[in-house]
């Protein structure tokens, strides 16, 4: 087993383990804990990205997600002071139903994944470097890129409108 494979398993385990802790931490139901584990998940996923040679995205992942999104979350959590509500009991039926539904999707999917053969004959060549990605982004994908700019504008307006304290 080469290093890459070992690293994959490490990162995968980290990703999934931390992911599980985000949603169901047996010790704490505090959203802050969840947020922190989400950071870990995202960072270990960035590791997986690196293993897949998507260097630029790994960086973006850490920058945008861990650096911005999660910070935003934490900011909001502290703003809202949600501690008091963190400990409500989960209903057994709800748990069961959730497990069944998600479990069903998971099982079906994994079963079919196992049954599907991917043609792996070509050696992976692609490198997700900044320049390669940039080239594609600004040639083939310039239009969605521009549309995303509108989206960001809308998000900006929206955030301002929604979070303005006074309803003037």
């Amino acid at each position, binding site marked *: 087993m080469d290093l890459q494979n070992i690293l994959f398993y490490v990162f995968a385990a980290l990703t999934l383990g931390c992911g599980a802790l985000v949603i169901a931490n047996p010790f704490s139901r505090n959203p802050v804990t969840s947020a922190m584990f989400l950071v870990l998940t995202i960072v270990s996923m960035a590791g997986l990205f690196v293993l897949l040679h998507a260097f630029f995205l790994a960086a973006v992942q850490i920058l945008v997600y861990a650096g911005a999104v999660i910070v935003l979350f934490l900011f909001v959590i502290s703003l809202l002071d949600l501690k008091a509500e963190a400990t409500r009991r989960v209903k057994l039926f*709800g748990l069961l139903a959730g497990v069944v*539904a*998600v479990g*069903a999707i998971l099982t*079906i999917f994994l079963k079919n994944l196992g049954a599907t053969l991917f043609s792996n004959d070509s050696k992976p060549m692609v490198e997700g470097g900044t320049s390669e990605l940039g080239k594609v982004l600004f040639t083939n994908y310039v239009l969605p890129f521009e549309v995303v700019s509108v989206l960001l504008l809308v998000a900006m307006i929206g955030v301002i409108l929604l979070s303005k304290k006074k309803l003037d």
Partner: protein
Amino acid sequence: MKLELLPWLVLFMPLAAAVFIALFTLRLRNVSSFISIGAIVAGFILTVVFINANGWQPTPGESVRQWLPVDGLNVEFGLRLDPLSLMMMLIVTGVGGAIHIYSRGYMHDDSGMARFFAKLSLFTFSMLGIVLANNFIQMFIFWELVGVSSYLLIGFWFEKPSAGDAAKKAFIVNRLGDFGFLLGILMVWGLLGSLNFSTLQGLISQNPAALGASATIAGLLVFCGAVGKSAQFPLHVWLPDAMEGPTPVSALIHAATMVAAGVYMLCRIFFLLNTPALEVVAYIGGFTALLAAVIAVQQDDIKRIIAYSTLSQLGYMVMSVGLHGQTPAMFHLTTHAFFKALLFLSAGSVIIALHHEQDIWKMGALRQKMPITFVTFLVGGLALSGIWPFAGFYSKDSILAQALSRHDFEGYLLFAVGVFVAGLTTFYIFRLFFVVFCGKEKSDTASHAHESPLVMTLPLIVLAVFSLIGGLIGVEGVYDRIFLAESVHSAGFIAALFGPFINAPLAASLGILAFFIGLGGAYALYAKADKDPLPEMLGGLATAMKNKFYFDEIYEATFVRAHDFVAAVADWFDRWIVEGFCIGLIRGGTDLTGRGLRFLQTGNLQTYAFLFVLGVAVALYFVLR
């Protein structure tokens, strides 16, 4: 004017009169009555003119317009002019005319006189239509119209509940008969493909087995119509009740014309009836004659007694048809028209004189106060009883003779019935006669009675004359022309006078014997009676007779109750099963589902997300299965 148009004119003048009165002169009593009387009298005259010009042609002449031609169903509107119909026309317009005139007096004080005459004219039109019809559908149409005009006339005093009920009853019972009639017509048409009487007759004479196996059924179904209209057992119940109408109506419809239509129809379609069917016809007629006569013995209403006598006499006629004796039947029909109209009108005269009192036990001793009525009634009674030389004698005798001439069990049995009924007839009519005209006054109104005006008595006299001589004026010969094409005997007056004794001595003598027995019985029991002695003598039987053998009750308990029951079930089913259960279930189910489904929408995001995921899971399962 073309001769062919005359019968059309006769037919439609009464209709025109009725429509004219209904539309324009409902408020003008006298004008209305003159229009109506004018129409029928003119009709009588025109008929006479036509017969004079045309003679009694035995071959049927037809005057035809197309009415409803659809594919194989070709309904014509045609007039069939043969001695049978021409004679009937004379009766309808003649006797009817007399009754119309009489009505002017009888209805003098009634506010609805114009309406009355309109209806009378409508009836005349319908009756003439039956008489002149040349095909089944046309006959059925007028058959129904006669039914409805009788309905209207019986219910003339509609504010009286009993009149309304009687009208309704008459209509429905007639409808029962018509039901069979129409089915019969359908059957005949289905088998032979034609509705025209002459065509049908031709087909049957060409091939007597044309009707095949269903011949008897078809014949009997058609006979049902006659049973209804001529009030034969078991549909006889409407006729006595129909006496709720004004007396001229009883005279016109329920004695002289409408009830005779059944017999007339039987003679008209005689060729359709095969032997088994005729047997049934004969027995039904005989039984009706007997039953009605028995019931008549214990009735107290002057008009009801006469009504039952009508039933009984109609039974004679039907029986006669059943015995292959159309001529005697029609002959009796003719004389019966005279004397029964006479009896009714005389009774009406009595009723008017007593201010609408109809109970015979409240009359009495009217002989002196109403001499003309007394005489005419006596003539009518004698004619009804069938004593020589009154008209009734000849016709009744010919029926009895017809029965005897059969020389079989059926003939003898019915002959016996006929003779017995003849005796009963004499008995009850003279019971009536003695109680009403003889004895002493049994109420105040009876003592203040006085004779009716001329407009009423004149028709009485005319009818009385015909009741006397009706048997001798050659009516029979006219009928023979069509029914027995070969032998048209034209005997002299004296031969005609004593003809029955020569031709069928047994029938004639037994008939006269029955008369005297009946007369004697009536005299012994009723000449001086204040109340009816018979109930004491007969006990329960008398009660049964008085109650008409409970036919009304039986019908009430069976036919009416059954229909009402089925109707109740249907209504219940409709209300609770169709409307309540089925619709209610669907509606309620939908509503409940809606209300229930709504609770999926708990408002809780978690539930929503769960349902969303569940939906994906299910979809995934099916898609990747």
